[in-house]
C-alpha cells in the first residue's frame, strides 16, 4: 500500500478563552486522517464546524491562544515549526476561502508573486493569469476590485505559481457559477493525477462526491467515517456511519430528508459516541465508548458491527 504523504493522528485543537487559563473550547477532538499522493481527500461537514481550524493546524498557523495535541506526520517525518516554515508555500500550499485573505492595500499581482520582482517570477505569474483567463490589467488591481470568480482564480494562481506536493483548499467553490466551479475542480483533479495529494474542505456534499476520491465525514470535531466517494453513487448500503447515511438521504436527489437536532460542541472529556443523541441505531454502550473500525483505507467510528453479513463488502 502506498505511503500517505500526510498523516494526522489523534489531533485535538482547542482555544483558551479571554486570557483565562481555565475556560477552553474545543474545535477538533481526536481527529485522524491520511492523505495519499494522487488522491483527492475531501473533508465534508457542516459550515462553521471547525474544519478551517484543521487547515490552520496542518500549516502550523494556529493562533496564540490555541492548544493542540496529537501528531502530524509529513512524508514520514514528525513536523515541527522549523520544518513547517520550509514547507509552507513551497511543498504545502493553501487556497483560502475568501478575498479577505489578500491585503487590501497591495496590488493583486504583487501578492501572487509574493513580492518577488525578478523577471522569471513575473513571467510565470503572467502566464498563469493568462491560463486562467485573467486579463493582463488584473495584476495591477486591488483585491476589492475583483469579482467573485476572478478572486477565486487569483487565489488558485498563488498555488499554481509553486509546485506543491500537498494542496489544502478551504471551500474552493462557493459563489462560483457552474463553469468556474467545474474548471476549479478539474484543475484539482488534473493536479492530483501528477501524484500530488489534495485535501479539500467543504460543506458542499454534491461537489465532494463528484470530484473526490475519498470523503472524510466531519462531525462534532471528529472524523466519523472515511469512505470512498463512489459509494455515494452506488447506494446507501455501502455507507456505514449513521451520520453519513443521513447525509446521503439529505441530498436533493435522494429525498432531501434532514434529521432533527444539531451538531454538539466537542467535549474532550466525553468518551462516548459524539453522534449518539441523534442516532437511530443507538445502544447503551454508545454512552461510554465508541469503536474505531478500520477496513483497508476506510474507517468508521461506530459501535455497530460492520463485519457482519448485513453489509456488502465494497468492490
Amino acid at each position: 500500500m502506498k505511503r500517505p504523504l500526510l498523516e494526522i493522528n489523534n489531533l485535538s485543537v482547542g482555544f483558551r478563552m479571554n486570557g483565562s487559563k481555565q475556560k477552553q473550547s474545543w474545535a477538533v477532538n481526536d481527529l485522524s486522517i491520511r492523505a495519499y499522493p494522487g488522491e483527492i481527500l475531501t473533508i465534508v461537514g457542516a459550515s462553521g464546524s471547525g474544519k478551517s481550524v484543521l487547515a490552520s493546524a496542518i500549516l502550523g498557523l494556529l493562533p496564540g491562544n490555541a492548544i493542540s495535541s496529537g501528531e502530524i506526520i509529513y512524508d514520514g517525518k514528525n513536523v515541527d515549526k522549523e520544518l513547517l516554515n520550509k514547507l509552507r508555500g513551497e511543498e504545502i500550499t493553501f487556497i483560502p476561502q475568501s478575498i479577505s485573505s489578500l491585503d487590501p492595500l497591495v496590488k493583486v499581482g504583487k501578492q501572487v508573486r509574493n513580492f518577488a520582482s525578478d523577471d522569471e517570477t513575473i513571467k510565470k505569474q503572467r502566464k498563469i493569469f493568462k491560463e486562467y483567463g485573467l486579463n493582463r490589467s488584473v495584476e495591477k488591481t486591488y483585491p476589492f476590485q475583483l469579482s467573485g470568480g476572478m478572486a477565486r482564480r487569483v487565489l488558485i494562481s498563488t498555488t499554481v505559481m509553486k509546485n506543491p506536493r500537498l494542496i489544502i483548499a478551504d471551500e474552493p467553490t462557493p459563489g462560483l457559477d457552474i463553469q468556474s466551479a467545474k474548471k476549479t475542480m478539474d484543475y484539482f483533479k488534473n493536479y492530483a493525477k501528477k501524484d500530488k495529494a489534495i485535501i479539500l474542505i467543504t460543506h458542499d456534499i454534491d461537489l465532494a462526491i463528484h470530484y473526490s476520491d475519498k470523503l472524510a465525514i466531519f462531525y462534532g470535531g471528529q472524523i466519523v467515517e472515511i469512505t470512498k466517494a463512489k459509494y455515494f453513487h452506488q447506494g446507501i448500503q455501502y455507507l456505514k456511519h449513521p451520520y453519513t447515511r443521513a447525509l446521503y438521504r439529505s441530498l436533493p436527489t435522494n429525498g432531501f430528508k434532514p434529521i432533527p437536532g444539531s451538531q454538539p460542541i466537542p467535549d474532550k472529556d466525553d468518551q462516548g459516541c459524539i453522534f449518539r443523541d441523534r442516532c437511530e441505531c443507538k445502544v447503551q454502550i454508545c454512552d461510554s465508548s465508541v469503536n474505531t473500525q478500520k477496513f483497508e483505507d476506510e474507517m468508521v467510528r461506530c459501535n455497530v458491527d460492520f463485519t457482519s453479513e448485513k453489509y456488502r463488502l465494497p468492490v
Partner: protein
Amino acid sequence: MNITHYIIKNFMKMILLIVLVSVVTFTLAVNSPIDPIRQYIGTGTVTDDQRDSIEEYWGLNDTKAERFVKWSTNLLHGDFGDSIIFRKGVLSVISEKAGSSLFLMLSTFTLTGILGYIIGLFMGRFRDSIGDRILKSICITFSATPTFWVGMLMLIIFSVKLGIFPIGFSMPIGVRADEVNIFDKIYHTILPALTLTLVFIPNIALHTRSKVIEVLESDYVLFAKARGESQKSIMKNHVIKNTVLPAITIQFGSFSEIFGGSVLAENVFSYPGLGTTIVTAGLGGDIPLLLGITIIISIFVFIGNFIADLLHLFINPMIREEEI
C-alpha cells in the same frame, strides 16, 4: 461619496469652526462678569488717546451685535486689537513669540511621531513579551502624569543633578538676541521637547500597537504566512503599509493635546513662547491677547484635524481608485 465632495465638505466645516471659535470667544469676553476692558480703561493708566482707540475697537457703547460685527471685520483685516500688557498689536506680539513655540512643537511633533510609531511597531510585533509589557506600563504611567511634573523631573535630573542642560529660557542669558546661534536654540529646546515627547509618545505608541496587532491577526497575514512569506517581508509589506497612515492621522489629530502640553512645558522651563505668553496674558487680565492667542491656536488645531480627516480618505484605496 465623491472625493472632491468630501474635501469641500470638510473644508467648509473647518472654516465654520474657525468662525465659531471667534464668535464664542468674543461672546464669552463681552459677557464676562468682570468686563475686563472697562476695568482696564478705568485704571487710569491709559492716555485719553489710547482710551478712545480702545473704546473704538471694542465698541463699548454699541450694542452687542454691532460690537461683534465691528470686531470680526477687524479680525479679518488682521487687527486683533492691542495687547494691554505689551502695549502693541496682538498679532505682532503673537508673531514675535510664535517662532520659538513653533520650533518646539515641530520638534515634538516629529519626534513623537517617529519614535512613537517605531515603539508601537515593536510592541505590536513582540506582543506580550517582556519588552512589550514593560513599555506598556511605561506608556500607561506617562499618560497619567501631568506634563509639568515630567518637566520638573527633567529639570531635577538633567539640569540640577547632572548639570547637563540649562535651566530654562530659550537662549543663554546675557547674550544678545541676534548673537544667539542655532545650536544654542536647540540646546535650550532639548529639555522641553524631551518632556513633551515623553508625555505624548504613549498615545501614538499604544494606538500603533493595537493597529499592528490587528494586522498581524488578519486573514491576509495568515495567508501570507501560508504562502511562505518571511516575517521580515510581512512586517515590511503588510504591517507597515497598513499602519503608517493611521499613525500619521492620529498624530495630526492630536494637535490639540500637544498645544496644551506645550503651554505647560514652556512654563516649567520659562521658555519664551506662546505658552508663557498666554499665562502672562491670563494672569494680567490681557483679554485681547488672550483671545488672539486662543483663536490663532485653534485655527492651527482645526487645520490639523482637517488634514487628519483628509488622510483618513487616502487610507482607503476604494476611494483613491475612484479617481482613475
